């Protein structure tokens, strides 16, 4: 399945993209998605944290992804 992942802040700077399309096997998890990003952009390993949001909610690493999910990488937030 093909997923378009939204990128913000430093992840946008590292990837030089605000969206990145990833092709994953059916049944892939949040962890699988993150592994793919770390392989493609090793600089992401240097971040204090990196989590995934699915449909505007923080997702557990084991959560299985669906083709209709809206997915985003969330580097450490710093609002306020």
């Amino acid at each position, binding site marked *: 399945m093909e997923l378009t992942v939204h990128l913000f802040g430093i992840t*946008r700077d590292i990837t030089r993209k605000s969206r990145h399309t990833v092709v994953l096997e059916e049944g892939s998890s949040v962890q699988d998605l993150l592994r793919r990003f770390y392989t493609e952009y090793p600089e992401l390993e240097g*971040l204090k944290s990196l989590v995934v949001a699915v449909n*505007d909610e923080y997702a557990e690493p084991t959560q299985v992804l669906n083709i209709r999910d809206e997915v985003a990488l969330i*580097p450490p*937030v*710093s*609002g306020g």
Partner: protein
Amino acid sequence: MIAVTDQPIDIQACLDAVQSERAGAVDVFIGTVRNHNNARSVVRLEYESFDSMAIRKMTELAEEAARRWPVEKIAIVHRKGVLSIGDVAVVIAVATPHRAESFEACRWVIDTLKQVVPIWKKEIYDDGEEWLEAHP
């Protein structure tokens, strides 16, 4: 009132939004752009927001605050885009019957907002720039 905006935040509108005849206290937190951070001179800031999720998380903060304290009305507004020194980045206004709970709820909201709301701050210095909190 819950909002992320690329326009200057209208503080009076936030106060109007929390006006309540049952409230005797309003605590308002205003976060502004300082001219320095960690001894570096700040030229300007850029805030980026994942709007849909930010609004969702801010709404959850408002709901949770109302469960923990007797909140009559609450406003949470965050700015995004390019900000200059002195500009208002965030306003949180909490109206409650008595003052102790307005301070507690307001402080909890700003503290928690900084941990969970997907908004990112880049500081631009004379000699470089940095996404805050990004690296260990």
